[in-house]
């Protein structure tokens, strides 16, 4: 380093840190503080402190919302998990140009806002939409399926929405694998399916699990799709947050909800990381 004056790196980093503190840390702290005040018709009572907002979260209504959110998220993540490997394997074996094209196809939906996608799914899944018209035209069903304003529709629409978060790390891992490993397994007598289960899968498990964790969190906190395709009858956590913060304007409760969501998210991430570590170390210690 030619100018190792202490403090120079901090000069470069400081502006962003400042913005992040003001725009990220402070708001979160604000929410935490708000959640500890009681709410009154006149607004937040900043003079008093209470844990009552958190206690209210234990209400069965909120529990029902949480269970529904969990259920949807687990199903979507599970489906994603099953589909990720076939897709990643396929794409990683294509010639390089084709690979970029395919990845582009999977990534671009992420860069187009979810509302437009929700519109697309609405047009596809509604009573006289594309799917129903197709199925009735092919005589597969007699009367239209109710796919909209239902959990099913939400699940169907969420799968592609967050698929990329598992596909991308998995593809990177598979592409980065030394082909000699597959060859070694093959020459030693392992059929292609055995090569997958005994070599490829174990070696790509950590990024796969990490991707699933992110995918799960994104599903838990999705808003536009559940709102537009599920409706008020199928309320999930994010919709509840909307209700509490923007309709009831009960910010202390909304704050408590936010804190609870963050706590849950961090717990899932932590558990996922520990799980991945255990998976990897558990295999090496076999006799």
């Amino acid at each position, binding site marked *: 380093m030619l100018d190792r004056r202490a403090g120079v790196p901090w000069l470069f980093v400081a502006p962003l840190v400042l913005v992040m503190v003001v725009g990220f840390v402070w708001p979160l702290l604000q929410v935490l503080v708000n959640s500890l005040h009681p709410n009154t018709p006149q607004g937040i009572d900043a003079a008093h402190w209470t844990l009552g907002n958190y206690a209210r979260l234990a209400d069965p209504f909120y529990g029902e919302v949480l269970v529904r959110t969990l259920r949807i998220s687990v199903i979507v993540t599970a489906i994603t998990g099953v589909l990720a490997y076939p897709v990643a394997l396929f794409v990683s074996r294509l010639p390089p140009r084709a690979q970029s094209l395919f990845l582009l196809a999977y990534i671009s939906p992420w860069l187009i806002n979810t509302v437009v996608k929700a519109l697309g799914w609405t047009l596809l899944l509604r009573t006289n939409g594309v799917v129903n018209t197709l199925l009735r035209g092919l005589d597969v069903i007699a009367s239209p399926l109710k796919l909209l304003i239902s959990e099913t529709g939400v699940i169907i629409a969420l799968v592609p929405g967050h698929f990329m978060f598992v596909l991308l790390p998995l593809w990177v891992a598979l592409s980065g694998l*030394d082909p*000699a*490993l597959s*060859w*070694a*397994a*093959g*020459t*030693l*007598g*392992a*059929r*292609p399916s*055995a090569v997958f289960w*005994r*070599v490829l899968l*174990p*070696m790509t498990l950590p990024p796969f699990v990490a991707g699933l964790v992110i995918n799960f969190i994104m599903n838990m906190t999705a808003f536009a799709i559940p709102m537009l395709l599920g409706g008020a009858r199928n309320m999930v956590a994010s919709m509840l947050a909307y209700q509490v913060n923007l309709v009831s304007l009960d910010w202390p409760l909304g704050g408590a909800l936010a804190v609870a969501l963050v706590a849950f998210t961090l717990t899932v991430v932590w558990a996922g990381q520990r799980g991945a570590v255990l998976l*990897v170390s558990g*295999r*090496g*210690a*076999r*006799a």
Partner: protein
Amino acid sequence: MSLELVDVAKTFGTVHAVDGVSLSVASGEFFTLLGPSGCGKTTLLRLIAGIHPVTAGRVMLNGRDITHSPMHTRNLAMVFQNYALFPHLNVFDNVAFGLRSRRVARDEIRTRVREALALVKLEALAERLPAQLSGGQQQRVAVARALVVRPDLLLFDEPLSNLDARLRDEMRFEIRDLQRRIGITTVLVTHDIEEAFTMSDRMAVMQGGKIMQIGRASEIYRSPANRFVANFVGPINELALSDIETVGGRRRARAAAQLVVWLPNAEEGFGRNAQSLLLRPESLRVSAGKIETENRYAGEIEDVIYLGATSECRVKIGEVRLSAVMPSAAAAGLGPGERVSVGWNAQDGVLVDAG
């Protein structure tokens, strides 16, 4: 188990990586594919292993045609350049991998793995992960993993190129020793001439996807089939020939348009269209006094380079420049500018065609 390749070819797009290769390896023989990078030797090895399908030709193992057999049915084993040990399995599980694929019983696996590890002297490290092993140790695990399945054919893809020099010498002898004891047919790929010469019974020199010459080390060194082979296996002096004539049962020609040289007696096929004379540096005699070789000339020393056990003498005969190598003791008194006699015996020369 003998191996036979009949007219094997492999094209990738428009590239002819392997172009009409035929060879036979006898049972128990140690055979090497030798050549510079890009010559097709590794591709050929992979064709034998079944990693890539052949574009044309046949691969026969002990008379059985395995050309279209998938690689997990061929019952051979391969040791890769970077060992390809499974990083998520410990040494024991790595070595046991092939046995588990063959559904060998648990007890038998334990016995055979221990045997294999003992063979490569690594019993103590059975619980370690590959990342915790040195390069040499990883290499031995790779060898043990290959041998434990009792393959019909053992393949090596430049197994020693990632090791440091001292370890390389050690492993050369160990592998060769192991191979002789077990008697397994082996094919090794390398670009290192010393490796090929040390370890093989016979070798094939490859270039541009084709075989240039097959034979024992001594044959390839002393009687290279063409200029490429001659140049590849060691330093060589080359003199262009013209005016070839036969005088009293022996042949002579004009070399480099200046010297009159006696040529070696041509064997069948060699030397008919001879355009160049090749001379190994060690076959040249350089001396301040008289020399007794058939071809002798008066020359001048340009430079003497001390290389330890040997010394290189760069000499000039008129405008012809030659490089000679001799024991340093013999080069002791020589220095630049000194007038010397330079010569060689006609039979030490090698005739090659123009291309």
